[in-house]
């Protein structure tokens, strides 16, 4: 690992925090599992940094939240959030970023927009939701099907976010290709 890698990881962990705290992006539809720009930050970390760096950036973010920083959307944080029903989503975040990053790296020679969209959807929905649902069904003593019902309302919002992430990735790839680290050599 190089110094620059460490800085990039810290940078994206901070970006995830900032996206969660920006008032403009704070759309609290229903409590507990907030849908805000924060989950966009998770997708962005994977899409921009690639698998390992993305997953480490998200892990660093969660680590600082666990240490006591109120950096989760809506100013939540501390150890309490890891005992709430959305813990499956929280712990699934690094896995989601890893999956998104892996897809970006695998298809680095394909056009950015479709690959980033697929990466964001697979990471942020296909991989993340089963983990979130497992967490919710365990903590809430629900059958996985019931837990899934409680989570489904968030999927439309997350789909919109995946589209935005893909648009952002494409704009970045045009304006400053170097910033799309997942596509670098």
């Amino acid at each position: 690992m190089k110094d620059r890698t460490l800085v990039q990881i810290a940078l994206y962990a901070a970006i995830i925090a900032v996206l969660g705290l920006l008032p403009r992006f704070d759309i609290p539809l229903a409590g507990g599992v907030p849908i805000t720009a924060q989950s966009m930050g998770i997708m962005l970390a994977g899409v921009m940094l690639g698998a390992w760096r993305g997953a480490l950036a998200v892990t660093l973010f969660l680590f600082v939240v666990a240490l006591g920083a109120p950096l989760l959307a809506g100013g939540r944080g501390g150890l309490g959030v890891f005992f709430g029903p959305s813990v499956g989503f929280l712990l699934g975040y690094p896995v989601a970023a890893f999956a998104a990053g892996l897809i970006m790296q695998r298809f680095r020679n394909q056009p950015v927009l479709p690959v980033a969209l697929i990466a964001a959807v697979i990471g942020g929905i296909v991989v993340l939701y089963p983990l979130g649902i497992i967490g919710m069904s365990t903590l809430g003593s629900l059958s996985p099907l019931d837990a899934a019902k409680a989570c489904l309302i968030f999927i439309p919002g997350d789909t919109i976010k995946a589209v935005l992430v893909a648009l952002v990735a494409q704009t970045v790839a045009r304006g400053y290709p170097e910033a799309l680290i997942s596509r670098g050599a």
Partner: protein
Amino acid sequence: MISLYLAERTWLHGVPAGWKLLALALISLAVTPFDSLPLMAGLVAATLALYASLGRAAFAQVALLRPMWPLFAILIALHWWNGDILLGLVVSLRIVAMILIANAVTMTTRMDAMMDVIEPALRPLGWFGIPPRSVALAVAMMIRFVPLLFALWEALNESWRARTGKRGGWRLLAPFCIQTLRLSHHTAEALAARGGVFRGERR
């Protein structure tokens, strides 16, 4: 940055962080297998008594649960639908108690004290070529980046507003990513100029 930490010292501040974390882990393991309503109601009552003993500022943090009410409503409704509303109540009370107990640890433990407790657990990272002190540095860098990035976002937002009269919203994300990466290059150069992180370990 707003903090969950209580500035006013309470008796729980005096308990070493390691003991508090151990107690939290033991409580969470102990309450998981029991689905008894009186027991969980008792646990919540005991937790509220703990908060009361920590003073008014601590008790005010019970309000942290407020954004979670819709979720508890959904949880209880789903159990009610399945014909076991009692289980729904038990589960909700257990989650409330555990969130509050875990938050009590966060409220009364400084971030650096928490970091010191966790540090021995990070030592195995050294085997994978990640020096434990790089974790501490990454944490410090991230916390320092947050206000910087806020300022950067505000600057982008202002120039967008000057041009369009509207707020930028998500359109700022691409320039934000590009600008922040520039910032990270400067930081990495500054870090390297001061001897770097990973070279220092070899010695």
